[in-house]
C-alpha cells in the first residue's frame, strides 16, 4: 500500500540517495587506502568519490582539512536532497538536522556562558546543524536573555521547554544540557516517525524505530559507562536516558542503578545483541583497559564503541534493502559520516606512521 503513492513525492529523492549510496567507499577502496604511504596517495585514491571537493586541497593536506572537505561533500549533497524534498519528507530531513543543531546550540551556549565572542564560534558549528536563526544566538550576551528571547525562536525550543530552565543553563554542566536535549530530540523523532500519518505503519517507521531504539540504547549505555567516577549522580543520570528503546524500561532502570561496568553488563544482558558486544569487548570481566602504556584502547580486539558503530552501520546498510522509505536518507547520512570518520582515521594513521592499527575502520560494503 505504502508503495502506491510514495514515488509521487519521494521517488526522486530515494533514487538520488540510492545513487549516492553507490558512491560510498567499498571494502576494496578501503584496502587500497590502507596501502597508501602519504596523504597525497590517499587523496588520489579518493579522487573517484570526492574528486571535485578534494581538488582544491594543497599537496599533503592535514587530516583535519581532509575531513572538512569530505564533510563539505556530504553537506552539499544533503542540501540538494533537502531542496528536493517536499511535505513530510522535508520534515523528516529537518529532524535529521536537529541532532547537529543540538551540538551547535550547546557550543554557542558554552561560548555565551564564558562570555566569549560567539561570532567566532559560528565557523566551528557543524554545517548540517545550521538554521536560520542561529546567528541571532550570538546577539544574546547573558544566559537569561539567550533563553528567553533567542532559544525560543529556534527549532529546538520544544526540547528546552519543560525540561530545562534558564537557571539550569547556568548551573548544569553543558554536557548534561546537551544530553537532555538529545534525549528529548530522540523521543520526539521516535514519536514523529511512529505517529505521523505519512509514516506510521510504513517501512520508514519500522526502520527508523529500529535505528532510533538502537541509538537510544547506545546513548544510555555510553552515558552510564562514561559517568562512572564523575559527579553525575544516579538520579541525574536516569533523567538522561531516552524513554524508549529495547532496554526500556527494565534495562534503563538497571542501568541507572549500575555502579560499575559489571552492573552495566548485567543491565544489558536482557538484550542479546548488547550482551554479545559486552562479552566480546572484554568489558564483562570488568577490565576497563584504560591507563596502560599502549595509549590506545585495547589494541587487541574492538572496543565497545567500535561495535556499536559496526552495528549502526549494519542497520543502516540493511535499510537499503527496503523500498519506498525516507529512512534511506538517514541511513545514507550515517554511512557517510562513518565513511568520513574512516577516512580521517586512515589519514591520521598514515600521517602519524602508526600503521599497525590502520585496520580499525568500519566498512560494511
Amino acid at each position, binding site marked *: 500500500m505504502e508503495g502506491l503513492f510514495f514515488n509521487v513525492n519521494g521517488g526522486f529523492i530515494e533514487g538520488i540517495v540510492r545513487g549516492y549510496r553507490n558512491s560510498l567507499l567499498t571494502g576494496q577502496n578501503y584496502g587500497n587506502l590502507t596501502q597508501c604511504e602519504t596523504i597525497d596517495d590517499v587523496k588520489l585514491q579518493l579522487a573517484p568519490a570526492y574528486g571535485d571537493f578534494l581538488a582544491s586541497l594543497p599537496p599533503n593536506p592535514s*587530516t583535519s582539512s581532509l*575531513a572538512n572537505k569530505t564533510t563539505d561533500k556530504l553537506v552539499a549533497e544533503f542540501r540538494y536532497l533537502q531542496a528536493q524534498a517536499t511535505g513530510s519528507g522535508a520534515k523528516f530531513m529537518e529532524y535529521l538536522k536537529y541532532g547537529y543543531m543540538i*551540538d551547535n546550540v*550547546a*557550543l554557542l551556549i*558554552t*561560548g555565551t*556562558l*564564558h562570555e*566569549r565572542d560567539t561570532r567566532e*564560534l559560528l565557523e*566551528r558549528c*557543524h554545517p548540517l546543524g545550521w538554521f536560520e536563526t542561529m546567528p541571532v544566538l550570538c546577539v544574546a550576551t547573558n544566559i537569561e536573555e539567550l533563553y528567553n528571547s533567542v532559544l525560543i525562536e529556534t527549532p529546538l525550543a520544544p526540547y528546552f521547554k519543560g525540561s530545562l530552565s534558564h537557571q539550569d543553563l547556568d548551573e548544569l*554542566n*553543558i*554536557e*548534561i544540557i*546537551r*544530553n537532555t536535549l*538529545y534525549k528529548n530530540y530522540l523521543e520526539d523523532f521516535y514519536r514523529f516517525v511512529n505517529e505521523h500519518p505519512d509514516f506510521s505503519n510504513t517501512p520508514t517507521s519500522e526502520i527508523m524505530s529500529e535505528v532510533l531504539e538502537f541509538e537510544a540504547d*547506545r*546513548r544510555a549505555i*555510553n*552515558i552510564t*559507562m*562514561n*559517568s562512572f*567516577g*564523575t*559527579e*553525575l549522580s544516579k538520579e541525574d543520570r536516569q533523567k*538522561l536516558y531516552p524513554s524508549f528503546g529495547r532496554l526500556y524500561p527494565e534495562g534503563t532502570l538497571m542501568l541507572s542503578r549500575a555502579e560499575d561496568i559489571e552492573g552495566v553488563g548485567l543491565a544489558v544482558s536482557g538484550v542479546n545483541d548488547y550482551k554479545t558486544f559486552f562479552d566480546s569487548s572484554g568489558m564483562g570481566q570488568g577490565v*576497563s583497559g*584504560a*591507563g596502560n*602504556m*599502549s*595509549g*590506545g*584502547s585495547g589494541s587487541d580486539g574492538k*572496543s565497545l*564503541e567500535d561495535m556499536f558503530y559496526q552495528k549502526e552501520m549494519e542497520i543502516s546498510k540493511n535499510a537499503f534493502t527496503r523500498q519506498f522509505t525516507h529512512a534511506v536518507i538517514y541511513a545514507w547520512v550515517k554511512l557517510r*559520516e562513518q565513511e568520513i*570518520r574512516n577516512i*580521517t*582515521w586512515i589519514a*591520521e*594513521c598514515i600521517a*602519524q606512521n*602508526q600503521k599497525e592499527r590502520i585496520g*580499525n575502520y568500519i566498512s560494511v560494503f
Partner: protein
Amino acid sequence: MSGAGDREAVFPTRQSLGLMKNKLKGAETGHSLLKRKSEALTKRFREITRRIDEAKRKMGRVMQIAAFSLAEVTYAVGGDIGYQIQESAKAARFRVRTKQENVSGVFLPQFESYTTEGNNDFGLTGLGKGGQQVQRCRETYARAVETLVELASLQTAFVILDEVIKVVNRRVNAIEHVIIPRTENTIKYINSELDELDREEFYRLKKVKNNKQRDNAAAEQEELGKRRGSDKENEDDTGTPDVLGEREDNDVIF
C-alpha cells in the same frame, strides 16, 4: 716565552716581590680549585646531556602516542571537542613546582610535576559518546606533559651549567695562561732588577772603594810629597830669619 715583556707595572722592590710571590701562590691555589670545580661541573653536564638525550627520545615516543590517542578521540566523538574542553577547564590539574639543587656552588632549578587530585573539570565531556577515549587521551597527554616537564628542567640545567662551565673555564684559562705567567714574569723582572741593583751597588761600592783607595793613594802620595817638601822647606826654613824670634839676630852687616 709569550709575553716576555708582559708584566705588571710595579716598582722592583723587595716588598713588591713579596706581594707578587703571595699572588702567585694564591693564583695557583685558585687555579687548582677552579679546575676541580670545572671538572665536577663537566661531569654533571655530561650526565645531564645523556639524560636529555633519553628524555627527548622518550618525549618522541610519548608524544606520538598522545597524538594518536587524540586521533582516536576524533574518531570516536566524530567531531571537534577542543573548544568545549578549553571552556570547561577551570583549574589546573597538572601543576609544577620548582626547587633548587646545588651543584658545586651552582644553583640549578628543578621542576617537579604533581597532579591535584579530585580536579576533573571535563569529566563529563563525551558523555554521549567517546567519553572513555577522552579520558584516556587526557591520561596520555598528562604523561606527555610529565615528560616535557622533566625535559624542561634538564634543559634549563643544561643551559645554566653550560654558561657556568664556560665562565669557570675562562677563569681557569685566564689564571693559567695570563695571570700566572704574568706574575712569574713580574717576579722574574723584579728579581733581575734587584740583581741588577745588587750588581750596580756592588760595582758602585767597588768604584767607591777604588776611588777611596785612589784618593787615599793620592793623598798618601801628596802627603809623602808634602812631607818631603816640608823637609826641604824645613831646610829652607832654617834659613828664614825669625824676625820676631827671640833668637838673637845676627847683626846685619852692611
